[in-house]
């Protein structure tokens, strides 16, 4: 019966809603799977079995009373540890928040709960979402369920691994420069970065506020769509969440893609792109063409500046956001005789190497004498990148390209070379910098069996077109689990 967890989100929800299986049974299956499978991967930092069972019993009681359950009834959804939860610790993968249990739920967590989702635990991540391999977690790395000698991607590596190994059919991640899409691509799952402002970030531990966005990772396209439909929409607690009509992403999966114009940007197929990845992505493009899409060559000339632009803008914002971690209001404190040393020592002991690097870089690019040359310059180049997209979207409805230039790389390969690690984000950064929605969908694996993702980038607030195209890709490359 635990095979139900191999099913997609919608099948599980409809099975529980119809009363064929109880939420308590699903919760028990999920805990058993995590206990059995996660020893090898370390996708979960914390599980909360008591809170989970209480939630499941409540759902079953409500169903027993004749209530109609929500669209995610009984669906286990793992939460990245950057999302505040009242029922479980929230550390963002950092020692500086060790033991912290927030006094409130993030808005997305409250919305999942209200839709009937089961919340078994919190997933591993790069510290403060800073990383592309999950190796920067202060609690030890997460491993790729397809090959445990390889990284699952990052920073939402634990969320992607949980879905790839079918411990949960879906999870939430957060994406600042690719942290949902890249791990989804490297684990054979579907990952969605919604339009900037589409989903409330209230209760998300902030990394870079002009870029951060929460989104789903799921075993199939429709499952991701249903989760996004639940979490999207304006929230009075986040002024940057846009007050626009919520998209109907699940329904959009049924839309025809015939005659849609889809752009292929030459800049994403240049030097550094792995040959196997390129072959798979080209097959996915051919599949879209067979579905009736018109494939149009396009140019995004400022793409090559994305990594430099991003690592100025994101670190500048991070240096400001992370100022709040000072050992005064929560988390561990390094005791010292004076306040200045208390701050300095707490931060020295609490932050890992990559976080320190980014705080220093971000402080540097904002400091007197350097602001114009680095930060202001980067924001201008960012404007040019957004303009590139505007021009492209006057000719096409969506863009198709690789999600990651390589498949999952071995643990340790880039751990001591920050710049090499940053360059692995090159395909996901531009959509983030321009605030655009993007989806990574699995396409044909490499000859050695590693997953490859194809990325679809859309116009602002046009997630429905992306879901229609993603569903079309999925018809040629159906979902497959890492655990047989």
């Amino acid at each position, binding site marked *: 019966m635990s095979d139900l967890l191999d099913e997609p989100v919608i099948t599980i929800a409809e099975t529980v809603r119809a009363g064929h299986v109880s939420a308590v049974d699903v919760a028990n299956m999920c805990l058993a799977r995590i206990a059995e499978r996660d020893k090898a991967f370390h996708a979960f930092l914390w599980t909360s079995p008591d809170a989970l069972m209480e939630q499941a019993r409540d759902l079953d009681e409500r169903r027993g009373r004749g209530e109609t359950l929500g669209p995610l009834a009984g669906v286990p959804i793992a939460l990245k540890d950057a999302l505040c939860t009242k029922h479980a610790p929230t550390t963002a993968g950092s020692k500086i928040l060790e033991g*912290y249990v927030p*006094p409130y739920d993030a808005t997305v967590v409250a919305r999942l709960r209200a839709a009937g989702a089961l919340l078994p635990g919190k997933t591993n991540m790069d510290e403060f979402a800073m990383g592309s391999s999950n190796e920067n977690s202060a609690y030890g790395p997460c491993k790729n369920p397809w090959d445990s000698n390889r990284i699952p991607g990052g920073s939402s590596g634990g969320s992607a691994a949980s879905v790839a190994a079918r411990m949960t059919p879906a999870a939430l991640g957060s994406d600042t420069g690719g942290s949902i899409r890249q791990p989804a691509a490297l684990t054979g799952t579907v990952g969605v970065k919604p339009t*900037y*402002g589409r989903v409330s970030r209230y209760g998300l531990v902030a990394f870079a506020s*002009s870029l951060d966005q929460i989104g789903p990772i799921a075993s199939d396209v429709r499952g991701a769509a249903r989760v996004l439909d639940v979490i999207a929409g*304006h929230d*009075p607690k986040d*002024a*940057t*969440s*846009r*007050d626009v009509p919520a998209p109907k992403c699940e329904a959009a999966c049924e839309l025809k893609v015939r005659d849609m114009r889809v752009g292929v940007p030459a800049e994403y197929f240049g030097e550094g792109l792995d040959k196997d990845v390129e072959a798979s992505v080209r097959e996915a493009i051919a599949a879209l063409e067979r579905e009736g899409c018109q494939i149009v060559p396009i140019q995004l000339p400022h793409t090559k*500046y994305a990594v*430099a*632009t991003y*690592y100025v803008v994101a670190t500048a914002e991070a*240096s400001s956001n992370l100022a709040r971690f*000072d*050992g*005064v*209001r*929560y988390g*561990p*404190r390094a005791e*010292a005789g*004076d*306040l*200045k*040393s*208390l*701050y*300095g*020592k707490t*931060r*020295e002991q609490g932050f890992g190497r990559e976080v*320190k*690097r980014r*705080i*220093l*870089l971000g*402080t*540097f*690019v904002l*400091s007197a004498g*350097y602001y114009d*040359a*680095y930060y202001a*310059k*980067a*924001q*201008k*180049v*960012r*404007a*040019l990148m*957004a303009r590139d997209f505007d021009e492209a979207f006057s000719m096409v409805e969506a863009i198709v390209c690789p999600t990651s230039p390589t498949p999952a790389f071995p643990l340790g390969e880039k751990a001591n070379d*920050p*710049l090499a690690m*940053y360059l692995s984000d090159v395909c996901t950064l531009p959509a983030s910098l321009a*605030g655009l929605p993007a989806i990574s969908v699995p396409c044909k694996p490499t000859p050695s069996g590693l997953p490859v993702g194809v990325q679809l980038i859309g116009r602002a607030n046009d997630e429905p077109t992306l879901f229609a195209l993603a569903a079309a890709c999925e018809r040629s490359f159906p979902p497959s689990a890492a655990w047989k």
Partner: protein
Amino acid sequence: MSVSRETILHVAELASLSLDEGEVDALAKDLHAIVQYVEQLGAVNTEGVEPYSHSAAETTLRKDAVMTGLTREEALAKAPRATEEGFAVPRFVHE
């Protein structure tokens, strides 16, 4: 622009971040490489380009009305040290 030990120590001071003596040189080396890479932005012609920003017109503010928030007890519950009135830190004003 080269990133020296002195630059790292100055920036760390601005960021309220103490550093172990042993990590200063490694951080200077890492940041130097990253800053060198970032300097390619200097080659882009940005004359007349306004810096990127998300449109403020799309920001929706909520009503300025009183709402219940955390109680004092809830807000202080996770502090490493607190008194009944607030967060406790070492004395920093000396008469």
